[in-house]
């Protein structure tokens, strides 16, 4: 029983780690204030699931989901990445809400508030043993792949330009770099990672509906990134793990605490909000970040 539980925690934590890594690329490395990250989680999830239900091979469905998430990232970014950070924050949050409204209302496509279920999962028929264990190994492999790919990108010349954009946009501009294109690339790649996480999330949940893609999901990614130290991939992954261990721990204590599940849920998010405030006030470099690296 304990093992099963652990597998579940690691599974969901790893999926959110991929999600958060995408945000870390956008915010931690490029300085983009994206409050709409969940939109791409949703696009990846719904695209994969709907395509596979229409007979498209699973692998292709996932690829299309990822690509579409990236495309929407570009769609969002092109008119808005030139905006000041606070405007970008407002606009991205609006974007995510519009996407969610679309998912909620266009029943003919998305199933509306009832969502989508009954879609195939990778290698479902073949795996005889513990499917969750199999999923975990798949997700972990993907996470490790993404992590190393990102680390490589960050250390490359491309990554260095991103960091200089985060520090002081005027510098790369004066060096003749097309800052806008770099920002778009960062947003697209981050959105693709979110889309990938979305597909994996859909497989894990086996049933998705718009309630899985509320704004709070974006801020789970934010707390993971802030906790781990913005611009620190290792920290982001650890942040996601800590976050979900914390969630599970509170579920454990549920039996011993005289609180209604709704209250426990609310208490959890209250703590997240508090952590966000406290970290930004007193320890903006997070648990594992470096103070010098901060541009705040």
């Amino acid at each position: 029983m304990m093992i099963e539980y652990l597998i579940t925690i690691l599974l969901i934590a790893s999926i959110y780690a991929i999600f958060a890594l995408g945000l870390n690329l956008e915010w931690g490395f490029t300085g983009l204030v994206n409050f709409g990250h969940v939109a791409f989680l949703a696009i990846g999830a719904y695209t994969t699931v709907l395509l596979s239900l229409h007979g498209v091979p699973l692998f292709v469905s996932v690829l299309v989901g990822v690509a579409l998430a990236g495309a929407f990232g570009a769609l969002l970014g092109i008119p808005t990445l030139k905006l000041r950070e606070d405007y970008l924050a407002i606009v991205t949050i609006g974007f995510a809400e519009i996407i969610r409204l679309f998912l909620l209302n266009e029943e003919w496509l998305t199933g509306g508030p009832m969502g989508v279920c009954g879609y195939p999962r990778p290698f479902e028929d073949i795996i005889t043993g513990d499917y969750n264990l199999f999923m975990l190994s798949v997700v972990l492999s993907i996470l490790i792949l993404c992590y190393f790919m990102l680390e490589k990108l960050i250390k490359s010349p491309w990554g260095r330009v991103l960091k200089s954009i985060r520090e002081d946009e005027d510098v790369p501009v004066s060096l003749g770099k097309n800052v806008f294109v770099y920002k778009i690339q960062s947003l697209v790649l981050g959105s693709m990672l979110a889309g990938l996480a979305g597909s994996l999330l859909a497989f894990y949940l086996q049933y998705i509906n718009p309630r899985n893609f509320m704004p709070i999901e974006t801020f789970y990614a934010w707390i993971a990134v802030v906790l781990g130290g913005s611009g620190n991939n290792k920290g982001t992954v650890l942040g996601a793990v800590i976050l979900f261990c914390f969630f599970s721990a509170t579920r454990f204590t549920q039996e011993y605490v005289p609180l209604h599940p709704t209250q426990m849920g609310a208490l959890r998010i209250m703590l997240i909000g508090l952590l966000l405030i406290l970290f930004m006030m007193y320890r903006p470099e997070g648990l594992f970040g470096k103070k010098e690296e901060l541009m705040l």
Partner: protein
Amino acid sequence: MLLQLLVNGIVLGSIIALAAIGLSMVYGILKFANFAHGDFLTFGAYLAFVFNVVFGFYFILACAVSVILTAMVGVGCDYAIWRPMRMKNANRVTLIIISIGMALFIRNLIIFMWGADIKRYALPVKRGIEFGTIIITQNQIVEIVVAVACMLLVHYILKKTFIGKAMRALADDIDLAKVSGIDVDRVIRYTWVVGMALASVSGILYGLLANINPNMGWFLLLPMFAATILGGIGNPYGAMAGGIMIGLAQELSTAILPPEYKMAVAFAILIIVLLLRPQGIMGTS
């Protein structure tokens, strides 16, 4: 039909306008977008509910208590969070993220204390009054009257009181205000009082109009920001006009769009303003 939408639009718009005034003033003076503003709106609505339904106060009294308490919490937050951050010269993005933390905290505190289900005030349900083809409910009339009264009050404060003039001075140039010897912290506290009080009133009115639920303020956030930016950040009169316009646009849009997409209308206006004229229609470049 259109006339009814017009009425609904003005009612909704005045609620958005009241909330946007406080948001705009804080944005203009403290130079950051307060994402928690919507949740203070919710907070005000819930406080009034608690005193009205749980403690059995008369509704008006409950509202007064809510306004005062919400304003106090707003000032408390300035002491505990915003002022220390000002002293550290905190970056705009830091403040925004902190405000998100506050938003999450307040919203879920409300759920924790009073649950996530829909609530209503202990008021008798009255029939609407018919004016030809349109029906106006008593609540709607109260809303418009209260909203107009509040806007006039804000106008009076800004134009006739010393502290109000100081608020306008700070919105113009906070550095010059410091240099002139103005007690900037004190003026900022008063700005929070006015902003939070208005948010509370706006929340109560919205609770009257629709119902009371933990997400009510959060769902008005986008229209509030749209109104603020449309009217020019830091311009309370712009926020008033912007709010009415957004409310009208949202309600009138239901003639051609499904009503669930009302928020998309606010979003569209927001994007258009930001891309074409970011200083807003009443702002100066």
